[in-house]
């Protein structure tokens, strides 16, 4: 099964604030294949979370608004669905787990109540007892010790890792086809991070669900993703399968990100960082958004926004690989 579960075409999500427009997601296209994991990488504010929220249609609106594009899920455009139809898809077909396990669970309901709720919404005709059974099963599945006891506990009684496990249990309780993980490990300790990633991987195998893994950490990508999409300032800058990316990053930004990963094998004086910051949307450069931070930047980069070029079955948005670049040389 290698058909696409979800196809995002030219997605544009803009924020309308103070009379201006912030193009948080600007023409992003990608596919997630069945049973595969897509990793989306980028710094904070590059639009990766907005992309996932756009798919879920959980944007704060106003000011956020999907202004263009298509999200084809199982052959149907999600953007044409009514609110009610979307609600049936959320949590049922497409589930999501968030960055903050600490705050993403409702503090006033027990863990069990929160999992059961998802089941009661989406599984027609399920009894409460049955739902409880399933919930405990799910807790077992995500390797929570003493699931019967945990079922009746409140989120504040659990550690961060446990809570993220609960989030995963909740997300997977209705057997979704797509699981969107928005920085699921960022807020956790390193050891817990690894456990959670392992768990996601394992469950993915078990349930056959596709995963969209959003992260700023290429390490996570290396561990889990089949394909990678690098985003910068609302645009895709590089798209490839994981191996190729790690083997040979093309875009200067990707290269920069790679250099940020501490390599145990090398002895480095200091970690290299990408100089500068993501540009403010007030003063987005006319040309390539990354240009002010780019070591390779040339005049053309300042003037012209590069296209997404197909190159060796990969995609990259950089003048370096264009004809013009060569011309300029």
């Amino acid at each position, binding site marked *: 099964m290698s058909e696409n579960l979800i196809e995002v075409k030219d997605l544009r999500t803009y924020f309308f604030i103070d009379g201006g427009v912030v193009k948080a997601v600007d023409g992003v296209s990608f596919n997630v294949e069945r049973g595969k994991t897509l990793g989306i990488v980028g710094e904070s504010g590059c639009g990766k979370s907005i992309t996932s929220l756009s798919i879920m249609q959980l944007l704060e609106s106003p000011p956020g608004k999907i202004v263009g594009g298509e999200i084809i899920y199982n052959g149907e455009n999600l953007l044409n669905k009514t609110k009610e139809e979307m609600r049936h898809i959320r949590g049922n077909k497409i589930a999501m787990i968030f960055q903050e396990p600490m705050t993403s669970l409702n503090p006033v309901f027990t863990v069990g109540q929160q999992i059961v709720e998802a089941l009661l919404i989406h599984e027609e005709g399920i009894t409460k007892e049955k739902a409880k059974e399933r919930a405990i099963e799910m807790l077992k599945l995500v390797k929570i010790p003493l699931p019967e006891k945990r079922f009746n506990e409140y989120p504040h009684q659990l550690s961060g890792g446990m809570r993220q496990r609960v989030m995963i249990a909740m997300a997977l309780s209705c057997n979704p086809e797509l699981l969107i993980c928005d920085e699921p490990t960022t807020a956790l300790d390193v050891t817990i991070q690894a456990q959670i990633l392992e768990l996601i991987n394992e469950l993915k195998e078990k349930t056959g669900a596709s995963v969209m893994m959003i992260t700023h950490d290429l390490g996570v990508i290396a561990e889990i993703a089949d394909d990678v999409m690098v985003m910068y300032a609302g645009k895709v800058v590089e798209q490839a399968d994981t191996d190729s990316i790690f083997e040979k990053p093309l875009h200067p930004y990707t290269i920069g990100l790679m250099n940020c990963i501490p390599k145990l094998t090398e002895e480095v004086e200091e970690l290299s960082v990408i100089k500068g910051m993501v540009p403010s*949307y007030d003063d987005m450069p006319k040309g390539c958004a990354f240009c002010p931070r780019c070591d390779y930047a040339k005049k053309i980069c300042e003037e012209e926004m590069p296209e997404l070029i197909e190159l060796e079955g990969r995609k990259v948005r950089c003048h370096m690989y264009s004809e013009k670049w060569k011309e300029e040389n």
Partner: protein
Amino acid sequence: MKIFRFFTKQKEFEQEVLSSDIEYSSYYKDSFKRLKKNKVAMFCAVVIVLLILIAIFAPLICPYDPTHQDYAAILSPPSAKHLLGTDEYGRDILSRIIYGTRISLSIGVVAQILASIIGVALGAIAGYFGGIVDTIISRIMEVFAAFPDLIFAMAIMTFMGKGVLNLFVALGLLTWVRTARLIRGSVMQLKEKEYVEASKASGATSFRIIMKHLFPNSLSTIIVLVTLGIPNAIMYEASLSFLGLGVQPPAPSWGNMISAAQPYISYRSLYSVMPGVAIMITVIAFNIFGDGLRDALDPKLRT
């Protein structure tokens, strides 16, 4: 970076405001910027300034002496001569309402400043010294909080005699507990902070520690409490005056005007309604401005 606004969560924002190591000057500058963005609060600030100006220049704007009795024009309806009509002694209602601004505002402000002084002093002492001092002060605060307020005010006013000055004291004594509680809390928090420990180690006296570190840290709390306490004090004044225990006639206060106008409400409804409207405008202005100030200065006070 506009986009950050969407990702910066409220909590972080509060955290930033709460962290006490920030520079005060920039902190207040930022707060003021935040406040300026709050259009409604700024509008209320303008209303408050207007009210203050009215209070200060009352003698200049008043068409009549508020206590001048014109027996030829008793309870006259609104006219060009008396825009809001006259009361049962032929006094101009508009002039009395204008003068009432003076009394209400001064009572609100002075009583709150007094309450803050008492509250800050006791709250800081309780919070700083802790132990038995704290226990005693806390119990005193509980006694004050649980004591029926109007009865207490009645007793104080009877004890000291009626008069605007005594009213300040009575209202101050009625409302200090809230300030004291909050100051006590924040002082206790701040006490744990390292820098206080550090200055202790360097041999500073307790008093100096409180003054130098704790007070500026709590200043924004106090400012917010005073602003939000003013409408409260104005309402208290109105209630006391309504009971005949507040501002004494012939001095005009909105509370005693409502009280005096009560029998005439079917006949001269404006007489009854206008002082109430004046109270409402003032209280609304202070409440909304105070809320805005709180959100800008000290969001942790919100709940």
